[in-house]
């Protein structure tokens, strides 16, 4: 296996996702799923593996819809994706023929669609899905829609009403075809940000409250360590200190993207002795990833996006982030708020609690069972400390 930071991995090379895929399968028997994670955590690879491992009587359709510009185009893709699974059904062909003229319809891959221009996209979508009910061979139809929030974002910019209707239509379809139809939404942009933007324009519904949010977490410690070992071995690195594998995995929070990155960077270093790889060389690469002016991991993003995410509360958010980043280990919620409040004394306790919740949702914080806070990702915390020139404090004192 070669390091492949950012590229598409073959199924055999997607490691440590078996439990999550199994969990998704179990969950999808019951309900649809909102798959959430930071960028480059491996959401798309999870979808690939899920699709490959799905039961034979499930129809799983995966599509990146991030560049779709309107609801009609979206429905065209859905139709094109459904077509191979329904074309044998006589009534489907008749129905499709009744939809419009063959001339002038879009060709998506090998599928030539009729011209839907005169029809309502909602009706077409509903009818197409309804035909599935009649197919007894299909136990379940699962749509894996990658980058759905980007699509909604594009539609919202041109026609917010259509974006609202699309979200509502998809929810209605899930309700009406609850026995067979499942959807998995995922994407680089948090769906809640799109919904918030729609709410600002008068949208009052909760379009995904029937879906279970499932987070793609980093790999388990063992899986990440095994991945490091496999990558280093296959790249002909000789490692005498076995603890090095775990050290690398832990230093990049067990995230496969960063693991691939570090091994790739080691391979590119012409002055590195491959027969004597040591922890220092690994730490150098990681430190460079965090502090280099080239900013290869764009950790600046974690600060910049607070402006869009938290608006007027940004200053409070930064204060809270500074407090938690500065703590040597974890800090209780009360202590964190108390320290942040020293900078912003007029902010109510309830607002701090809400802000903490949002920061947890947006992958900054993680809370343990006792409710104590820490940064979710060590890499982000290291960058935060470095970038904002913070000192680590212990029991209120600089150390």
């Amino acid at each position, binding site marked *: 296996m070669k390091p492949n930071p950012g590229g598409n991995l073959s199924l055999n090379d997607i490691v440590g996702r078996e439990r999550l895929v199994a969990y998704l399968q179990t969950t999808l028997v019951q309900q649809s799923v909102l798959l959430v994670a930071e960028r480059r955590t491996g959401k798309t690879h999870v979808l690939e593996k899920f699709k490959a491992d799905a039961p034979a009587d499930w129809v799983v359709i995966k599509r990146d819809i991030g560049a779709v510009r309107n609801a009609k185009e979206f429905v065209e893709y859905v139709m094109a994706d459904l077509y191979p699974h329904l074309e044998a059904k006589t009534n489907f062909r008749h129905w499709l023929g009744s939809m419009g003229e063959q001339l002038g319809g*879009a060709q*998506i891959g090998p599928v030539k669609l009729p011209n839907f221009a005169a029809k309502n996209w909602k009706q077409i979508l509903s009818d197409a899905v309804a035909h599935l009910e009649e197919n007894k061979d299909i136990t379940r139809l699962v749509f894996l829609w990658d980058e759905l929030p980007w699509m909604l974002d594009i539609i919202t910019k041109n026609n917010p009403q259509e974006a609202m209707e699309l979200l509502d239509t998809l929810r209605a379809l899930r309700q009406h075809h609850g026995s067979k139809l499942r959807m998995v939404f995922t994407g680089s942009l948090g769906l809640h940000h799109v919904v918030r933007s729609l709410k600002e324009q008068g949208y009052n519904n909760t379009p995904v409250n029937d879906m279970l949010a499932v987070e793609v977490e980093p790999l388990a410690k063992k899986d990440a360590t095994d991945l490091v070992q496999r990558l280093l071995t296959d790249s002909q690195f000789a490692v005498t200190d076995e603890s090095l594998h775990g050290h690398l995995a832990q230093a990049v929070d067990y995230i496969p993207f960063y693991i691939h990155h570090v091994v790739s960077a080691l391979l590119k270093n012409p002055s590195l002795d491959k027969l004597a790889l040591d922890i220092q060389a690994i730490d150098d690469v990681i430190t460079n990833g965090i502090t280099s002016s080239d900013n290869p991991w764009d950790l600046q993003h974690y600060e910049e996006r607070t402006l869009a995410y938290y608006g007027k509360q940004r200053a409070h958010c930064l204060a809270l982030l500074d407090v938690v980043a500065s703590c040597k280990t974890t800090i209780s919620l009360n202590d964190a708020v108390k320290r942040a409040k020293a900078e912003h004394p007029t902010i109510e306790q309830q607002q701090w609690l809400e802000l903490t919740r949002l920061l947890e949702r947006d992958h900054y914080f993680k809370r343990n069972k006792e409710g104590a806070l820490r940064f979710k990702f060590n890499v982000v915390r290291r960058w935060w400390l470095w970038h904002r020139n913070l000192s680590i404090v212990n029991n209120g004192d600089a150390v």
Partner: protein
Amino acid sequence: MNEKLTKISGTNARVKKSLYLSHFTPSMMPPETLEAMLVQREPLLTRCLSNVLESLRTGSRHHTLFVGPRGIGKTHLISLLHHRLSQTKEAQSKALVAWMREEEWGVTSFFELVLRILRTLDARYPELRIEALTATVYDLPLQEAEKKAESILLQLLADKCLVVLLENLDDLFEQIGDQGQKAWRAFIQNHANTILVCTTPSLFAGVSLQKSAFYGFFDVEQLTELSFEDVVNLLEKIAIEREDKTLAIYIKTPEGRARIRAVHHLAEGNPRIYIIFAQFLTQESLDDLVQAFMHTLDELTPYYQARIKELSGQQRKILEYLINHAGAAPVKQIAKACFITQQVCSSQLRQLRLKRYVRVIEQGRESYYELCEPLMRLCMDVKKQRGEPVSLLVEMLRIWYTEDQLTNWLKQPKEDFSLSISYIQRALELQKKQNLEPEVAAVLKDLLASNGAYESNPLMLEFLRLKTKNSLARELQSIVRLHFETMQPIDSMSDQDVAEATQLAIKMIKSTLQDSPTSIAAYKSLSIWLRVSLRLFKRDEHQANLLFTAVMPEIYRFPAAFSVAILTVMMAQKTPNPDWLLAILSAHPSGFASKEVNSVVARVTRIANAFKALEVEKDITNLLSLPKEERVLMEILTNGIFQK
């Protein structure tokens, strides 16, 4: 060298084989020539090819992005990758390769990109009859045409992969915009049959920001400048490729290497400049060379002008300063010259760094900034010269030819010689004006850039072996020889030579102190001389005392440097013994018993004892009892000396 010049400029100066070296489009050069001229980048190219082949054999897909400034050799790499890839069975049976040539874009959407890919494939694989397939696309409404074009591409690919080799991805991304990027990404993700190998002069938002569609998508390969040895290698390869044995041999001689080093300082590791420079070596008509050079700069100038226009007024001012300054400059100096505060200057420099106009060099606590792309300076230089000879070309002529050779050249009657005459005359003027020979100056510049690591630097030997008529250079050589005499004598110096060299060194110390702009520069120099003087005690106590006396009153202004210098000498003996130092100090006629010296001696004694305990008795108690800064000092010293 005279023989060489005769060969070049006279009737016998025929090279056995002509060689077409393109400045801008290496893709037009024969692959064999490109292979022959590949230096430094072989591991990178092998890695990239191996990744593409793995992508063709397995389900994984590697996407590579070569990053490096203009002229660094990106097109050369892509051309070679294309050549090597085309030879493989995998590419022949499992891929369609679309090699999108540099700067051919008129593409403003993903749809147009697909059409361009189809057109490129059509030229490469006429048997696929792509033109006929795409004819209907142009009759469709836009949204349908988009999908139809994608469908045709998918149909052509069937179970093959599309390998796209593409130059200037940054420009393309800017033109196709956010929507186009998302559409392209969706195509790649939905069909998993595309492999990208792209280039860009610098990383840009479209691939490096988390909010971008292609964030973290590419395996980034930074192309570094050619080192001096790479350049020697490159020029030698060009000479061999031209079957010019005399030149190939000359390049390896100390004189040839010294001259190349001098040119290296002008070209700053940019391969495109060396490709142009390579024509100096065999060019029969200097006029052709000058014109070729000017043409290259002319082609590039609008690009750099456009880039400069994108900047704010303050940023332009800073950039202009750096263009004129011809080197790296600290923030303070730039701010002063541009009449802005240091804070504003730092902030603007940060922006310029992010946009890849400048790069930063950390020197101690100070940050120096310089232009990322040396070609930018050259192009702006042409604009500034207004008909006057371009300084880079003049410098190169001056370095490569001797005064006699240039004078002889001028005497040769030739027609239409006006352009080159002005260059030769200017080069001659400069040669007469300059005291120090350029090759000697180049070695010295590299020595200075080695940040104080003079003593074990092979360049010192190179410098000693240079033949120079310049009296200053000869004095410097004498001092360097003294340096070696105290470590590993090369050719043993006589007592008189040592005495003369010591006098010169003392003279030099005084002038260094007068000329050093910063304390850092002064203490670096002083600590070296202190080390030399301490080592000289073994060889010639009298001369050592003279040198020591010259250094001591100055060096204890810098107690840390003083300590490090003494400890370095002691550690090198592997038996650190502070008594030896105390003996020197107490025996010294000037009686260095000042408070500062005592404090340094106390510190050195503490560290030496701790070190002895650690080495001999394996006891770290003493070490831990040292103040933190002394522990750090000891750590540096032990790493620096004993690990060697």
